């Protein structure tokens, strides 16, 4: 297991203009029933093979808190995974 996935989302109370733009475009697509869109970011951190799991967790949390997310406006979650996730 060498991969940590960090998901960063704007806090619910922060306006997401990108999401608003998308939700406003949906009717033009013929899509109905979607009342809200929020757009976030996924970051994958690859650690060297054999890195200790708790060390990975701790480092990833530190990296996410200090650099990948701005805790003033964003929340983040961290999860360890043992394989590349399908992106398509």
């Amino acid at each position, binding site marked *: 297991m060498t991969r940590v996935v960090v998901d960063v989302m704007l806090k619910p109370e*922060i306006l997401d*203009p*990108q999401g608003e733009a998308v939700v406003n475009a949906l009717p033009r697509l013929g899509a109905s029933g979607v009342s809200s869109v929020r757009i976030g970011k996924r970051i994958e951190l690859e650690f060297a093979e054999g890195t200790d799991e708790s060390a990975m967790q701790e480092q990833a949390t530190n990296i996410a808190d200090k*650099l990948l997310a*701005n805790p*003033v406006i964003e929340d983040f979650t961290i999860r360890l995974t043992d394989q590349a996730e399908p992106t398509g």
Partner: protein
Amino acid sequence: MSPRIGVVTFPGSLDDVDAMRAVRLAGATPVPLWHDDGALRGVNAVILPGGFSYGDYLRCGAIARFSAVMETIVDAARGGLPVLGICNGFQILCESHLLPGALTRNQQLHFRNRDQGLEIANAETAWTSAFNSGDRIVVPVKNGEGCFVADQKTLDELESENRIVARYVDGNPNGSQRDIAGITNAAGNVVGMMPHPEHAVEQLTGPSVDGLGIFTSVLTYLGATTA
């Protein structure tokens, strides 16, 4: 000897030369500072200019916060050094936690570039003493991520402690909460503002010369503190 005012150049800074020019027109000596060098070269104040530090690839100002020069500036600012962050510089000050809140994508999503009316709300900071509270000025604004946000408690504190330095008037270009265009720290030596006073220091190239007051203010402040 005229005060030495440092202007930091990060990779991607755009307005460092304009800021140095404004410093010179105000009567001080501009001193170029480099992002990768923590030395402050004996400067009496520092300006973080506009632009796109380190490409703003992650978040505006997020990478600049970890530069060698910012490590030094954060300590010096906590010790009282006057620091002005303009546009990207304001974003860097928020990311460095020298100022509260954050700058997010403009509410209308559009990059805004226009001459902007401002009301000076606090004329007692190191960078605004040349004005009177309530003065209206016009300086250019140009940003894509200039929407100031903070939680309600922080916004209330900023208001009650008179730490809102400038407000947008005649239209809010980016959706900033409570029309905030600039704020200061509790001590009044660190100021961040989204609009660009350094682009309004000469009649030929700016909409006014209102911006010059920002740069002469710090000279008065330094004169007063060294006298």
